[in-house]
């Protein structure tokens, strides 16, 4: 019998369960339940009791039956101790315990007698905790963004921690903020401008980058090494040092407040990375294919159109998505160049909304959802391409 590993298991698992229970309680508070105390010590004791019972019962019962009975009795006890908790809260507790006890499946006294087991156990619960931690830290702001857009300013000012959605209202009232930003604040136009700018940037960037990348990857010319190192160096220079000269020149040329001006700047700032990413891929295409094309009487133009582009579609997709993401999310230049609401992009429009302190926050968050949702959906759908684009281009940030 190894007491050290037994105690470590008990502590690690019950602390983990306590933290999970507390998180669930906090999330429930945000749905309008009025807990005033987390009862950390009580939770820890309960969890400890649960784990001890679990380990000492061992494998005498059928596993599924065991976890069901344990979870149910724990839930009943827990609900009894936390009075006035509604049904869904208890169901959540039940599911959490079910998941937790299922994780404990292989732990019995025999398993804990193995060598070096305690470090492994701590590590296991640490990773479980890390998964919960990362998921929470990342998704929480997105959740808040969405939920706030469905609330009203007054409700939020009265009770900022009650984020529950009132389903007794009809759907139009719940989604009112979205109707308002599209009608009053003209977000439909901004979506169009943003899409136009982003897609335009992608197309122009590709038009310029593909030939240039081909030249860097394949052809021999004077100054080639100089050019390929300077691509990376140029890429390191930030937008903020370009902003003042570009602002002055664009003001004098009348290119400010125009979508074309933005297109030019976005294209130029994404070109270096696009060339860098594409030339890397072009180099991996076997030269023999092109030579065959040359013998068939193709010129350089024909080779690029008929051989290089069809063969490097995955790389082109990565570059396109990456450039699209940069253009869609870009803020600095749109802030500097656009003053006229008629030419606003989405990012600039949301910034403009905050300029007026009177704007209710649900409109601001509805706007944020509108600008975030498309790029997240594109990311989820094309994740493979975008991830490879990010890895190749992530010298930029």
């Amino acid at each position, binding site marked *: 019998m190894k007491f050290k590993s037994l105690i470590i298991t008990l502590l690690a698992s019950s602390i983990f369960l306590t933290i999970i229970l507390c998180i669930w309680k906090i999330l429930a508070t945000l749905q309008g339940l009025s807990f005033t105390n*987390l009862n950390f010590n009580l939770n820890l004791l309960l969890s400890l009791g649960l784990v001890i019972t679990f380990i000492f019962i061992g494998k005498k019962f059928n596993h599924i039956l065991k976890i069901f009975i344990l979870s149910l009795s724990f839930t009943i006890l827990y609900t009894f101790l936390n009075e006035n908790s509604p049904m869904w809260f208890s169901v959540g507790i039940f599911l959490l315990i079910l998941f937790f006890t299922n994780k404990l499946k292989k732990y019995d006294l025999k398993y804990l007698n193995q060598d070096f087991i305690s*470090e*492994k156990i701590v590590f296991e619960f640490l990773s479980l905790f890390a998964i919960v931690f990362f998921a929470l830290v990342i998704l929480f702001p997105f959740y808040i963004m969405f939920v706030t857009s469905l609330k009203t300013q007054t409700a939020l000012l009265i009770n900022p921690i009650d984020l529950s959605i009132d389903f007794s209202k009809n759907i139009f009232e719940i989604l009112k903020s979205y109707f308002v930003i599209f009608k009053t604040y003209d977000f439909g136009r901004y979506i169009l401008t943003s899409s136009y700018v982003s897609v335009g940037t992608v197309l122009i960037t590709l038009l310029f980058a593909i030939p240039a990348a081909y*030249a860097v990857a394949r052809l021999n010319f004077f100054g080639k090494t100089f050019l390929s190192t300077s691509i990376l160096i140029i890429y390191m220079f930030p937008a903020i*040092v370009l902003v003042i*000269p570009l602002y002055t020149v664009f*003001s004098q040329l009348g290119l400010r407040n125009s979508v074309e001006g933005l297109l030019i700047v976005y294209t130029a700032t994404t070109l270096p990375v696009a060339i860098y990413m594409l030339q890397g891929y072009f180099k991996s295409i076997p030269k023999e294919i092109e030579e065959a094309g040359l013998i068939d009487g193709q010129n350089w133009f024909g080779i690029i159109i008929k051989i290089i582009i069809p063969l490097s579609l995955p790389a082109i997709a990565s570059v396109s998505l990456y450039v699209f993401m940069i253009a869609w999310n870009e803020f600095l230049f749109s802030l500097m160049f656009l003053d006229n609401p008629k030419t606003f992009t989405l990012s600039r429009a949301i910034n403009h909304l905050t300029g007026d302190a009177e704007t209710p926050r649900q409109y601001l968050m509805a706007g944020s959802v509108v600008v975030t949702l498309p790029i997240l959906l594109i*990311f989820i759908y094309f994740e493979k391409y975008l991830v490879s684009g990010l890895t190749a281009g*992530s010298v*930029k940030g």
Partner: protein
Amino acid sequence: MSTTLSKIEKRTAYTLLLPAVCLVFAIILFPIFANVWISFKEVGLKDIRIPEPRAKKIVKNIQDSNSELKIIYKLRNSSLIQDIREVRFLDKLPKNVEPVNLDKRCKFKSQKIKCFFGNWEAGYRENFEIFVKDVNNNAINNNDIKSYNPNLNGKSNNILLTTDFTLKNFKKVFMNNNFFELLTTTFYFTFFGTLGAILLGIFAAQLVNQKFYGRTFMRSILLFPYVGPVVALAYTWTLLLDPNSGTINSLLVHYGVIEKPINLLGQKYLIINILGFELKLRLALTTVIFFEIWRYFPLAFLFILARLQAIPRDLYEAADVDGAGPFRKFFYITLPQITAILSILFMIRFIWNFNKFEDIFLLTGGASGTLTLPISVYQQGFAISNIGMGSAVSIVIVLLLITFMIIYFKLIGKKVNEI
């Protein structure tokens, strides 16, 4: 034969490169050099508007007469600070319409009125009137006359193109008492932002490199903060951290963790008492650094994960045979394998965090001790409207960047040899 082929190859290469190079030169390289020029000048935001002669045309009927009209041009110099020299004016009249008693400064020839107004000082205004009459005493259509727009041009000095230079901007930048604080704030932000993002990235990559249910889903979620638009995310965090009605402060107060809400983004210092020692924590700066870490650790994660997946499995199998636990495996196998990528990552992220503008700007606007060099460029150039100063700060950024890059390429060169 071969020489001509290589000539053709060269020529093709240059043609293919030309558009991209021109664009990058015009939009990226030219501004960097233009900064040097502007930083030696005293230029404000208002100076960069070129003064223009302008005219507003108003057509008025004269009582009792259909065949006569009065045209009033409201002339002005658009600039309140600069003169315009040699202003010229041109307008057209419809057929058979002629001016009567034309001003001395003007001439009428083939239905065109040409005037030479000479010099207009700053803020010049004049109501310039012309009476016109139909030659055949027919009624004149007002809209016919209005359909022509007067054309004006003149010469003016463009402050940006003169050759008066001054060192004032740089003196102001370096002699400013806050310059040292500006540098240290930038350094703190950059260093801790980078370090935190990489540590969290290692942690996340180590996590996702294990096998568990929902692993691919987890990998997508981890990239959300980086993929989402900075505007939306920054405002969401501002709302979350708001001292009056932000969710996080309210929750902490609700559960009795803190007594009063903390203004995490608006308070410069937080004084912590540890064992009688008073520690001053840069609160707003710390919050901004945490946002930075939150937003950019996904990139570190992506890089490190790619490297982790390339570590040969048998190393870990050997460690298993030796009975090494997960922590030892990490410190003795994983960490040595990823140091190279970590150092590259650190340097790249360091440069990019050093340049970061949007995040701080949207969260605090550079207030409460979060003023970094990039924010300073914006404040000088656009909030205080001193373009010259803004450029001078830009030059400081560029010089520091070049220093970082030299260090970077020296170290990376060595690293590449080691691998």
